[in-house]
């Protein structure tokens, strides 16, 4: 039937929004224990019918509270924290993997940057040396062109001399007749 004052207070505490335990630790205040002790004492009693003012009341027969409820609650919250940490660890591991991959890639790019700097320096030196060699290379080109022209002239002279060769005996006869 109607609940007693202590049990009504317990029911009201259940109906209210529970306060989240900080750091997942549970601390029970003395008052509820006192109340539970009181209720236990009352529960230890037999449910009795009181007749106060002609109204019958009865106490609810409940089970006695477990003595290690604190330990059980602590265990529950510990396991819940472990579970939530496990849920979040997966994402953390993904981030760590990406972080490691990015670090390795940045190292690789730094090596490539050093190689590129060396290559650019070497190419600049090469360009300077090539610029200093350029006049000599131009002279070599000129010499080659002149030698080619000389070769052509030599071929032409050779051809002309070959053409003149058959006329040589006639010229010798003329010269001999003039002397005679």
């Amino acid at each position: 039937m109607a609940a007693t004052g202590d049990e009504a207070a317990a029911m009201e505490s259940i109906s209210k929004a529970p306060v989240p335990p900080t750091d997942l630790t549970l601390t029970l205040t003395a008052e509820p224990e006192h109340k539970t002790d009181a209720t236990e004492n009352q529960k230890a009693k037999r449910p009795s019918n009181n007749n106060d003012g002609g109204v019958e009341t009865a106490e609810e027969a409940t089970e006695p509270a477990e003595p290690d409820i604190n330990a059980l609650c602590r265990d529950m919250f510990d396991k819940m924290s472990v579970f939530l940490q496990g849920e979040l660890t997966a994402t953390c591991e993904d981030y760590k993997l990406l972080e490691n991959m990015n670090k390795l890639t940045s190292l690789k790019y730094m090596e490539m940057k050093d190689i590129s700097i060396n290559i650019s320096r070497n190419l600049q030196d090469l360009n300077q040396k090539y610029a200093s060699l350029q006049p000599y290379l131009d002279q070599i080109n000129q010499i080659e062109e002149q030698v080619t022209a000389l070769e052509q002239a030599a071929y032409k002279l050779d051809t002309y001399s070959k053409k003149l060769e058959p006329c040589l005996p006639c010229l010798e006869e003329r010269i001999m007749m003039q002397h005679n």
Partner: protein
Amino acid sequence: MASSETQPRFGQSVKSLLSDKVTSCSGDVIALTRQVLKGSRSQELLSQAARNMVIQEDAILHSEDSLRKMSIITTHLQYHVEHSKNLQDQLKHLMK
């Protein structure tokens, strides 16, 4: 999160109400955590990023090989230029 069921009903004890409330709260916390992780889409984005990085790795290695070959070729060109300079000095000496 229905709180209307926390009112005492006929036949229900304080202990059972408390255990139900605790169970529902723990289930809500777990569901909230999972929803937060799911809504952030971090798993999809991170796995996609890792996949793209793996695809890029081949190109990065190829680029590194190409750069090393370029450095070797540059060194060979330097040797050629040095040899040409030596020949130039010999030519100058001969022209004198």
